[in-house]
């Protein structure tokens, strides 16, 4: 017993035929065992037989457009079939499997796994809202209003819902399943990563006196965004992962390059770095106090930088 499966471009089965014969013919004509409605397929296109070793082989019956293995560009007169790689006739993909073809073990009914995902998504969501509220609370120096907390939280929820909704829709369109929970988790993980980096940047700019970490925050945000986009794309369809990775990587590279350029031009225009000087509770300080002399030494070194800047701008501006 042999199963002939017509596949979509995304390798989904769109038609499946059971045939109990030693030789099977496939074509557009009605005298075939399996009919493929594809104008590029010949009336009698291909036949499936067993060779001497008992393997299934496909043989071209003299069609004009020929027989190919899946994506291969070289036309074959005869192909040995393995039940995994489909053959291509005309513009159609056809996969032939024997009844003994091994299938994946039974997947456990999702209840436990699914509820775990639900709990993870809800839990992570609450953690994010909590962090959001905490940051607002820390930044609150005047009278507290309920709306100060509600509005950002709702904005956050709304944005996340819209983002996840779009990806779920794409999944539904291309993979047939919305994978809603997966998308929610991916988005939440991305947001958490971004916040962790921001917190780390603020902390290190104060407690470790490393303001540089702060100025690269935009790179971190783009990296996180690219990572979650890739993961979302992976949920939408697990095929072409390399191509998706390359596209996301290219977009990431472009975004970082453009923003770096924009920042350096903004700096050249305004003469100001866009970072602010963060203060935190004194007890968070991790580095030892420096003595005044050493700090004054730093200040003295700054002079040579300023003078180098002056020489630089003088070179570019016309002498009057």
């Amino acid at each position, binding site marked *: 017993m042999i199963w002939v499966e017509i596949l979509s471009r995304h390798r989904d089965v769109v038609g499946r035929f059971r045939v109990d014969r030693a030789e099977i013919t496939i074509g557009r004509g009605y005298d075939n065992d399996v009919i493929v409605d594809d104008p590029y397929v010949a009336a009698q296109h291909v036949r499936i037989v067993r060779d001497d070793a008992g393997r299934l082989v496909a043989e071209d019956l003299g069609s004009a457009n020929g027989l190919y293995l899946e994506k291969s560009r070289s036309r074959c007169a005869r192909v040995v079939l393995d039940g995994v790689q489909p053959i291509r006739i005309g513009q159609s993909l056809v996969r032939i499997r024997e009844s003994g073809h091994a299938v994946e073990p039974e997947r456990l009914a999702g209840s436990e796994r699914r509820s775990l995902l639900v709990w993870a998504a809800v839990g992570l969501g609450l953690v994010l809202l909590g962090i959001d509220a905490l940051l607002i609370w820390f930044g609150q120096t005047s009278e507290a209003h309920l709306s100060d907390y509600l509005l950002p939280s709702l904005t956050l929820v709304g944005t996340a819902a819209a983002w996840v909704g779009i990806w779920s829709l794409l999944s539904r369109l291309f993979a047939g399943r919305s994978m809603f929970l997966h998308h929610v988790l991916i988005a939440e993980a991305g947001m958490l990563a971004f916040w962790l980096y921001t917190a780390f940047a603020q902390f290190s700019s104060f407690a470790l006196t490393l303001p540089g970490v702060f100025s690269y925050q935009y790179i971190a945000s783009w990296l996180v965004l690219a990572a979650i986009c890739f993961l979302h794309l992976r949920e939408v369809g697990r095929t072409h992962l390399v191509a998706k990775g390359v596209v996301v990587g290219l977009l990431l590279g472009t975004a970082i390059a453009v923003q770096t350029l924009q920042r350096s031009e903004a700096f050249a225009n305004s*003469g100001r770095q866009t970072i602010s000087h*963060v203060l935190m509770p004194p007890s968070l300080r991790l580095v030892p*106090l420096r003595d*005044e002399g050493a700090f004054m030494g730093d200040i003295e070194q700054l002079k040579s930088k300023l003078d180098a*800047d002056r020489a630089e701008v003088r070179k570019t501006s016309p002498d*009057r």
Partner: protein
Amino acid sequence: MELSIASVLRALRGWGAVAAVLCSITQAAAEAPSGAEGVYASAPPRLLQIRTLVADAGRQTSTGSGFLVSPDGLAITNYHVVSDVALEPKTYRLEYTAADGTHGDVSLLAVDLPNDLALIRVDKHDAPYFSFDKAALDGTLQKGERLYSLGNPLDLGFTIIEGTYNGLVEHSYNEHIHFTGALNPGMSGGPAVNAQGQVVGVNVATRRGGQLISFLVPARFAAALLERSRARNPAPADLRKDVTAQLAAWRAELYHAFAEQGFRAASLGTYQAPETRASWFECWSQTNASASPKPRASINSTTCTADASVFVASDLNTGAVQISNSYAKSTDLNEFQFATALSQLAQPRLTTGGSFRKWYTPQRCVEDFVGLAPSAATNDGSSANAGNDSKMLVAAKPSSAQLPLRVIWCAQGYREFEGLYDVVLVAVTQDHGDEALVSRLSLQAIAYDDAMRLGRSFLKGLQVVR
């Protein structure tokens, strides 16, 4: 509340027509009646309208006034009336128009940037001219004396404005005469004379937001400039160098005077904050105690400002010095919230006196935690070897006795003026999570070494008193 030399010029630009109105003045009164009529009768032939023209186009970009001070055509005006020509001699040139309608070229001989004066030569011989008032030169002029300020306001024609001499302006580094009278744009560079028609001062500025409050440059600076430079004949490019050199020298002198006066400790909450002893600062206090809704941290600030800025170019006014100390104490903010409030207070904010792209190099900052020697050990901040003292004391005392600070130092250089920088130093005490002193010292147009010296003695003025 600031001296607005710039506002004078800004309004002055764009007033197009030439003051041919000057001709309508009667040439009577050789017998010189006293008071306004006398001045009005005798002054016009001695006055000039000075116009800056774009050399290629031959059209005026700004106008001001000037007055003859010698029979051979030397005249005094404001630096800010001729600054374009001093800085960009290839782009601009000067022309004068006299009361009788004659006009001709003006050559710029010398400038006095700190006092906003310039000496020019016009092509006039044996013309009547102004002499300086002896009492004004000696500084013995009586307050309340009638003065007459002359000029051509807003290009409307020759005008005389009567006012009162009110002595020198207090809390000012540069000497200015306080003249109660309505100076208007376009009168810059014109003379203010006594009833006998002798020059007491040169019109320079009005105060924005005041009524009839105007300022004159004392005549002795004009007389000195005349004496010093009457024989000069500089190449056009020399004047630009003069401007640069005068700016640097004047700033160095000002900051040395500032450093010599030193800082004294003023109590602010549980801290001692450095305040200047110099008399030319104006200090104001601010509190948020009466704010509504009730503030969650009380912030009391004292800000001392020296408006020692001068007009350098039509788009650069620089030289302000400011010291500000804010004591903040949390009433019901937690440590994180309080730190947020302090962050807002402590942003360095380098204020610039002109457009960045034209005048400044990019701003650079250094930021770190600094441990300061304990209060009992500090001596007078003005002492020259104070830096070494403090280092020894740091080594001698346990570090717990240090006053921990977060210090931010930001600076930017001037593109054109080698050796001059704008600097701001912000120090935030880090010994408590719920109270802090935020001290800020901003210094415009200062030599870097001077800034470091002042910064060091400023930091030394920070102490805890508990």
